């Protein structure tokens, strides 16, 4: 089982251009990060292109993650998600909703995710549970699928301003709950 300390160590070695460490990191994290890419892009070939670029970014920028104070896994997921959404936005520039990407409700975690069941996870799930369910869905869709306000407004059939107000309030409630 790969621990956070193991990944930290791999990242330090990658800073020193240790290709074996990159291979180890790839083996330890690629399936999870590919899941993140795939969730945003919903297209294997695009997701693989992005995942490739993620590891190149890691190779070049492994030394910068410590500045953020993130755990290595949080940093990797953040980089992966950002690069995936950049790709998504390029694919459909300002075109608003694309219903081919309809959200599959994700209240039930998969067996692998359930096994992880970290305390962090339990905390955010509990706090998401305090939001009204459609608002929690909106937060998830924005984070996991990279939906825009336009997408969300169309999905929930509410005006753009309303969805923005919803989401901002929900995020602040989420923050209050998580910092309680």
């Amino acid at each position, binding site marked *: 089982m790969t621990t956070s300390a193991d990944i930290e*160590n791999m990242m*330090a*070695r990658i*800073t*020193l*251009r*240790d290709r074996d460490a*990159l*291979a180890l990191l*790839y*083996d330890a994290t*690629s*399936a*999870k990060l*590919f*899941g*993140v890419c795939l*969730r945003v892009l919903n297209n294997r070939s695009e997701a*693989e292109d992005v*995942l*490739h670029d993620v*590891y*190149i970014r890691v190779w070049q920028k492994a*030394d910068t993650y*410590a500045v*953020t104070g*993130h755990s290595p*896994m*949080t940093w990797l*997921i*953040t980089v992966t998600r*950002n690069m995936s*959404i950049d790709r998504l*936005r390029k694919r459909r520039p*300002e075109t608003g909703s694309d219903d081919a990407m309809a959200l599959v409700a*994700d209240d039930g*975690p*998969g067996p*692998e*995710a359930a096994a*992880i069941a*970290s305390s*962090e*996870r339990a*905390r*955010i799930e509990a706090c*998401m549970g305090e939001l009204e369910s459609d608002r929690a869905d909106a937060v998830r869709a*924005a*984070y*996991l699928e*990279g939906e*825009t306000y336009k997408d969300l407004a169309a999905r929930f059939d509410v005006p753009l301003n309303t969805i*923005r107000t919803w*989401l*901002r309030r929900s*995020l*602040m409630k*989420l*923050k209050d709950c*998580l910092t309680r």
Partner: protein
Amino acid sequence: MSESEDEHDDDALAAEYVLHLLDDDERRAFEARLAMDRELQVLVWSWEARLSSLSDTVEAVEPSKTLRNRVLQSVGEPPARRPAQAFWAWLAGGAVAAGLLLFVLFGETFGPEANLTVAFQAELASEDGSQVMVAGVIPATHEIVIERVSGTVPEGRVHELWLIAEGADAPVSLGLLENQGITRIRVPDDIAPGVRTGTIAVSEEPPGGSPSGAPTGPIVAAAQFNDV
């Protein structure tokens, strides 16, 4: 708007930025502020950390077998060497070049023209902050001067300094650090051009330094140089 409303608004903006919900104009404006505003940066990092747990529900999916090789091949390409001339641009000017020439001709003797000011600096700090070192580069003499500000070397171990030049495929040892105070290390001419844009790192090694020519022990700290 009151200060607390400003803060509240920035926090919400940071969340929207992390979620990629800002439109192009808002995003550009936010990024311009982000580059200058450390507090805003901290708000962004906090949202990144907070929301990343949402990814725990994402199921892992194996990418195709060929992708691993593609990644490793991409990083395995030979480094693009910068032309040697770039080094001369790296120097501060003619007087410095004259000083360097004297150095080359007479070893340790410097001409009065030699410019021994530090041009680039880097702070090397370990993750837990227990080890702090400050490094400076004197371009004229190709020297890295590194001072131990806090922290000690474990009994029976030494610290070794490495350079990972931009695009390089392996770190190069620059030498061992004194266990206390200041160490001056002369960087070989052929790798000196890579110092400014590369990364330097300190690893913990057995006495005498790494036996393999590559770092073997834990990495204490790594950093890049900035202009003084």
